[in-house]
């Protein structure tokens, strides 16, 4: 895998290097105020006057020492700085969106499979596929127009309201990170409670644990933003970000849920032919229980795998969304760094995608083994 990553980096680096011109030429050619002699200065400063192999060797040496170099287009800002600024924004937006659309898609898919052949099926499928194939930039703009201009319900774009954030005591990224961790913690605790309640010996205890635990976590979550520092101080700002999050998340959900829906549907249809579903039905369990407890859970396997893999493509998918919603994340960096021929920044961004992809693959493997006992057996064997 490390070799794969190295190949990936090399390919990316040389592709970018092969771009016509360089970062300096871009600045130079567009601006007659920059005299020719300034060009040489700039080339030397960026190390672009050396041969490509030496540049590549130097870059790689630094890279594996953990130094991603200095951005050309935002010289002399370190690349890692820029990525650290952008990554949380992208991650928060797309994780939220992904969880939402996977959830929506899963529910819809479950419904479709169960209601196979009924009336709603065609309608839902066609509208889902229609949204899935809609031309995204235009669709996003129309949603903005509808919800922000006509209905005046949601903010136009951006991730915060500058007027509100004037003299804010926090940088936006602090708030992003805080929101991220608080949400993740709450979710993990909630999952743990669910897991424990399902394994509780006594059914009544289990229910109590589930509800009690749920309420406690929610109370803790609310309490964090209202009762503690810096949660309390950040609340307004976190709220502002969350408010700005709604529209892009909604857009991404509408556009993407159909993919998950169709995946779940196929997976469910497959599962429903399995013997254990027949057994469950034969036992006289209610349809809802068979559907949610038995069929859906098994059908979740490929869906969960695909979710993990989709994490890796987060940045890629962000290009259009981030541009239309003025959401300054990795997608924007990716496009602009390539267009400005900022090789260190572009390779840095690409390498983060690569790392995410690797992690995604790894987690997908783990998850597969964890969720599907059949795989576990074959892998041991």
């Amino acid at each position, binding site marked *: 895998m490390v070799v794969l990553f190295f190949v990936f980096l090399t390919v990316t680096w040389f592709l970018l290097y092969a771009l016509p011109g360089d970062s300096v*030429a871009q600045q130079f050619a567009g601006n007659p105020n920059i005299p020719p002699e300034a060009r040489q200065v700039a080339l030397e400063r960026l190390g672009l006057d050396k041969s490509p192999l030496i540049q590549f060797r130097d870059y790689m040496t630094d890279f594996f020492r953990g130094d991603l170099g200095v951005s050309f287009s935002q010289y002399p800002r370190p690349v890692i700085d820029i990525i650290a600024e952008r990554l949380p924004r992208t991650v928060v937006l797309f994780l939220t969106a992904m969880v939402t659309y996977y959830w929506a898609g899963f529910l819809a898919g479950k419904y479709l499979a169960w209601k196979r052949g009924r009336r709603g099926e065609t309608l839902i499928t066609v509208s889902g596929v229609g949204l899935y194939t809609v031309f995204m930039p235009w669709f996003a703009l129309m949603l903005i127009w509808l919800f*922000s201009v006509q209905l005046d319900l949601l903010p136009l774009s951006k991730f*915060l309201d500058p007027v509100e954030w004037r003299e804010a005591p926090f940088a936006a990224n602090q708030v992003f990170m805080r929101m991220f961790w608080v949400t993740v913690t709450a979710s993990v605790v909630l999952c743990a409670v669910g897991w424990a309640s399902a394994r509780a010996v006594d059914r009544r205890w289990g229910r109590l644990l589930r509800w009690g635990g749920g309420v406690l976590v929610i109370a803790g979550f609310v309490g964090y933003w209202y009762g503690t520092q810096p949660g309390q101080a950040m609340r307004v700002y976190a709220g502002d970000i969350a408010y700005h999050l709604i529209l892009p998340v909604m857009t991404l959900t509408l556009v993407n849920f159909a993919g998950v829906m169709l995946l779940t549907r196929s997976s469910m249809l497959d599962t429903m032919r399995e013997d254990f579903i027949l057994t469950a039905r034969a036992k006289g369990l209610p349809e809802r229980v068979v559907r949610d407890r038995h069929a859906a859970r098994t059908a979740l396997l490929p869906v969960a795998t695909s979710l993990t893999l989709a994490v890796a493509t987060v940045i890629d998918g962000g290009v259009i969304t981030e541009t239309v919603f003025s959401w300054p994340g990795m997608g924007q960096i990716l496009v602009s760094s390539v267009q400005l021929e900022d090789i260190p920044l572009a390779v840095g961004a690409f390498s983060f995608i690569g790392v995410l992809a690797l992690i995604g693959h790894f987690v997908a493997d783990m998850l597969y083994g964890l969720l599907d006992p059949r795989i576990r057996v074959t892998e041991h064997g």
Partner: protein
Amino acid sequence: MIRSARRWLSLVTISAMIAVGCSSDSETPDPDTSDASTDDGATAPGDPADATYKLALFSDPTTDNPWAALDTEADIWTSYVMPGQGSLYTYQGPSYTLVPLLAADIDPPQPSAEGDGFSVVVNLRPDVTWSDGSPKTAHDLVFTFDTVVKYDGLGGNFPSVWPLARPDDPTTEEDEFSQGVSAVEALDDTTVKIVFNFDPGLAIWPFSVGLAPIFQKAYWAPVVDASPDAETLYAASGMGSPNGSAFNTVEREEGAFWRNETVSDYWDAGSRFRVFESGAVEYTPASGESETWGGEPDGDTLTDYTEGPYISEMLYSVYTDQNTAVLALTENEVDFILNPLGLQSGLRNEVLAASDLEVIVNEEAGFRYLAFNTRKFPMSELAFRQALACRIDKEFMTDTVLGGSAISSDSLVPPGQAFWHNPDITAPCAGQSEQERLESAVDALKEAGWTWDVEPVWDEANLDVIPKGEGLRGPNGEEMEPLTLLAPGPGYDPMRATYSLFIEEWATDLGIPISAEPTGFSVITDRVFTGDPLAWDMYILGWSVTPFPDHVFRFFVSSADSAQGGFNTPGYSNPEFDELAERFDTVKTLEEARDMVRQGDAIIARDLPYLVLFNTPLIEAYSSRLSFPFTEVLGGLQAFDGLGGVVQIN
């Protein structure tokens, strides 16, 4: 089987909870966070009202360091938001007259011979202060120059505003000093001497060095001392550093917004400016005698205003999509959009229809052009260039094809620069019908000895060229190789892409085998500026130009051939023009310079290394709660960064 369904459900619920739970909070903002900045308002005349001037940007400013903003970060967005450092002289809107700012001498003093070189002694105004209230003195100017010298001239825009007299310049072959400034000395607090190692023309003094930004010694000297190289200096934060304007940057959230607050005691507040049609400026300081700058007042008064600022702060928000920025404008989320290209023509109706927006149209300071590689046959033949230019009907292109969203243009100096513009320049075959154009082109080629196997003829019945020209040969019987016209693709600029296709068609009619090739912008610039100078035939690109039109010479003088790294991409070489350019380098008066520019412009229009094609109108819209002292100005309000210093909010 883990309870996975519930896991996803819970995650969603929680995210939804933050969204809903907290957004209800955000709608009733804490009073003490949102209005905290208003009590430190300025005390200038007209007491800056508690008002925020909200502007939209299309891209994030990349640095808050004013040094870096002139060098590595020299992009337009950073320059919009960065408060000006101030210089000896400056341009006065809307006439672009050169007027004193820090200098006390109304007209820039003439250089006088001194030792090996020449020097100017400039008196400074004693009442000019930095944004922190400390006086701006000759020592600041000396410090700025010394810093540029310390870092070996710096890069980006620095070499053009502070050309240094340096030995062994990498661009000159001979081992001699390059022409530039060799020293800046403070004679006392308000007198500064600038020494050149040559006799500087207007282009250098005052139009480069006189406009060079000045940095405050007190703030920057410790930073410079601690910075062994320019990188370290550029990496330092410039947030809140003293500058020469009425604003101070106080806050910045990368990717989102940038905030400049009005300084409490701007030195020029309350001064009255009256600009006349002739370009003269009548200046009346808040306390003191009035002066007249830039010649005798004549003609209508273009504007008459009192310097503010009248606002409490400038708040710049980043919108990466033009459409959302316009929506923000119509929703009054922003007051004005800063964009060098203005609004696209399609958005005009959208903003016109909004009742609370004002729309203005100005001419852009620039031009789009077709360049010929005069190093190669057949572009080397004057008759060829003239015949092709004759076939290109610019009025038809701008008015019919581009539907009025472009302005036909013939001169390297836009007509908006009335002082410099040469009104006598006309394009070859201007005003002729398509038939006449064809015939003139054919005649021009024939006269120069060109021949066809099949001569193109205008067919009146079909209103077309039938038959088209075939087998065109040069005066010495040279055969024509297929030619390529590089133009930006329709995705980058549909206007230039379409233009290139029409040129292709017109040329083909004549028997010239041109094929228009849509090419990426950076591919074109790479090929024509830095690549093999013989590797291209023709291309279409554009320039934006500065108020002092020395580009007329810099783009075509033979010593600036792009093969040597200069801007003369066509490889144009004309001794008559070079001689004129040399004289322009040492010209001392504006009138002489104007005559030379007009003459040079006319030579280029005759010899056609460039064929200027068109210019675009710049459409801007602003909230009607704003009022500006002037809105008719070349380059639009964006050219003055949105006029934060004088805008009033009703």
